[in-house]
């Protein structure tokens, strides 16, 4: 099944030589695809590609892998784990028809969850290219992916957060201060997760122990994570460290994952190791993954695929390991991949949409660097759009300023404001804890507290000593 794709419009015929060219040309304009030399060279060609893509049968993505089955273990994972029975309701549809199927009112949370194992990353990437931002939000908002460890994440009406108290020197006092600041805003129900400045097993164990002590001091129903390389986490487990979640950055091709120093077998080994600790009280989702468009291209491992399609393939990797959390670090990679706020916002919505359709518990690091054409107002916009799309969790750092990684994300204020504005609540176990700590008012909101409030004195007084 090969052959070129064609679209005719006003007498002009646009020809796309193969499926990957068609997908790349159908993508909204972004700098990474232009850097790779695969973007449509005119606005009309971009829409013509979408017209041709709308007529492609979904089955074609099963018959014609974009990266060969023989040479890429991610392709093998996608093909071998495809669930034909789940696919059956849409098996006869084209990409354009799938968009309308997904938009229809009767495609509800239950039907979308049942469909997920029947969809492949390439199918969801393709249909995303036919969706406007509003479509991406509307469809994703209908999906529900619920995961559990010590808290339940992804329930209807909930918005969780990762508390990210990074410090450039991994100073325990500084990390404790950032953590306490976040807890006072109700942050941290998805995870308290630190990007370590130093990736070695001693530093990892040191931070894990410190976070666990803080969690136990206040009996917080959440989980902690030190975002070290997966091999570091395995060593930490072997040495008896109190490790809740194994973290790893992943990408959508075998070669790009090799650039991260991982294989599917290594991820499986790490998952086994974390499961063996049996630390989850209400569930056993023990993995945490980060992804982001541009990762494969920056490792020269994209196989000519556009950056959004290859990103979606990373979610097939993620879902194979039943993660508690996955998030795209959407604006972190820099302007050569996502140039400005328009590109960052679009990519954030695409990543969330594709992951949710595939059954992945997606969150987002709504963020930007100082050489991207974006500012905090744009992050306000994207965060609001993602919250409307029922994103599982958002990352929050003190004052939106990550002093270790030198980029800006959302602040504790920002995520709390979204909860209050849209009536979203934290994970139920964590919400009950906030109430016990005196951090919620009668309406379930987190009120500003004076320094004399008992909750403040208790958290900071005890936490700073810990």
């Amino acid at each position: 099944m090969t052959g070129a794709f064609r679209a005719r419009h006003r007498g002009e015929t646009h020809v796309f030589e193969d499926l990957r060219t068609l997908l790349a040309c159908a993508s909204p304009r972004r700098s990474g695809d232009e850097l790779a030399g695969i973007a449509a060279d005119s606005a009309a060609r971009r829409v013509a590609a979408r017209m041709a893509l709308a007529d492609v049968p979904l089955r074609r993505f099963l018959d014609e892998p974009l990266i060969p089955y023989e040479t890429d273990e991610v392709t093998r994972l996608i093909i071998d784990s495809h669930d034909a029975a789940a696919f059956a309701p849409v098996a006869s549809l084209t990409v354009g028809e799938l968009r309308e199927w997904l938009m229809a009112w009767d495609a509800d949370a239950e039907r979308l969850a049942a469909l997920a194992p029947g969809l492949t990353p390439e199918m969801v990437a393709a249909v995303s290219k036919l969706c406007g931002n509003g479509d991406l939000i509307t469809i994703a908002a209908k999906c529900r992916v619920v995961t559990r460890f010590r808290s339940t994440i992804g329930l209807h009406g909930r918005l969780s957060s990762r508390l990210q108290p990074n410090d450039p020197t991994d100073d325990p006092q500084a990390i404790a201060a950032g953590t306490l600041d976040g807890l006072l805003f109700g942050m941290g129900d998805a995870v308290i997760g630190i990007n370590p400045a130093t990736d070695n097993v001693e530093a990892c164990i040191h931070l894990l122990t410190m976070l666990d002590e803080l969690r136990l001091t206040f009996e917080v129903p959440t989980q902690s994570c030190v975002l070290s390389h997966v091999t570091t986490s395995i060593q930490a487990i072997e040495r008896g460290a109190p490790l809740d979640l194994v973290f790893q950055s992943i990408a959508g091709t075998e070669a790009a994952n090799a650039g991260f120093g991982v294989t599917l077998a290594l991820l499986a080994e790490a998952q086994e190791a974390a499961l063996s600790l049996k630390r989850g009280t209400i569930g056993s989702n023990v993995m945490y993954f980060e992804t982001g468009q541009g990762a494969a291209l920056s490792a020269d491992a994209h196989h000519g695929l556009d950056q959004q399609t290859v990103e979606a393939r990373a979610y097939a990797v993620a879902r194979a390991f039943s993660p508690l959390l996955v998030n795209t670090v959407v604006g972190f990679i820099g302007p050569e991949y996502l140039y400005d706020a328009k590109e960052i916002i679009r990519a954030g919505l695409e990543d969330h949409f594709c992951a949710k359709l595939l059954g992945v518990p997606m969150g987002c690091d709504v963020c930007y660097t100082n050489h991207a054409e974006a500012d905090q107002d744009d992050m306000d916009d994207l965060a609001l759009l993602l919250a409307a799309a029922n994103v599982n969790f958002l990352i929050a750092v003190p004052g939106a300023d990550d002093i270790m990684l030198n980029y800006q994300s959302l602040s504790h204020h920002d995520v709390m404001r979204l909860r209050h504005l849209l009536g979203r609540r934290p994970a139920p176990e964590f919400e009950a804890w906030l109430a016990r700590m005196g951090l919620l008012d009668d309406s379930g909101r987190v009120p500003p507290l004076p320094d004399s409030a008992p909750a403040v004195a208790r958290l900071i007084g005890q936490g700073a000593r810990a």
Partner: protein
Amino acid sequence: MREDPFELLRRMTRARVALGRAGDGLPTAAKLEFQMAHALARDAVWGKVNFDGIAEALAPRDVIEVTSAAPDRASYLRRPDLGRRLAAGEASKLPSGPFDVVFVIADGLSADAVESHAAGLVIATVARLAGLSIGPIVLASQARVALGDDVGATMRARLVAVLIGERPGLSAADSLGVYLTLHPAPGLRDSARNCISNIHGHGLSADRAADKLAWLVREALRLGVTGIGLKEAAPDAALETTASPTPIIHHKPTGARDHE
């Protein structure tokens, strides 16, 4: 007297904790302080280095101005590949050496860093390198670190030291980095370089950076290596290579490498 718990939090970290609240938002002063920090970073990224001023500061030393193949800042940001090579015809401005050391002052991602610290660092380092032949100082616009490979190869430099503006953070918009490479040639891997980063008012001083750079230059020439091999020989653990010794890439790496 009882201590203010929020003041205690502030003392524990440089992070923006205990900012206070105006309802669900920031107090106005904190909001505007953040905007100012971002504005300084943006101005540093989009600022144009006053290379005439730098040439004056370096006088009477010879300087040569070159530009990369990136025609403007927007192209520079979108196309890292263009910032890594000289524009057509620029190589003909450069003498063919040979030299022991060539210094390249590159704008990178912070005009502020280059204007504040680069000339002083070159002068201080050259003063510590008696006996070595130093080429004319190359001033490079729209340049990334690897442009030094093109320049160094053309000038037959044994070592090229690229001083470059680092991607600004909110806490420091004027941070300079230095990348030292032995036998520069196009296509070299980043693991072949040594890096001194965080040179700014509240970071590493220009004098201390000059000490480190001069030590690295002499050791690189003595041992015939830069990169991981030189790091292992260094007595000072603070000397960094640009590549981690293990083949591990993090998804959220420190931002210092964006200008490469």
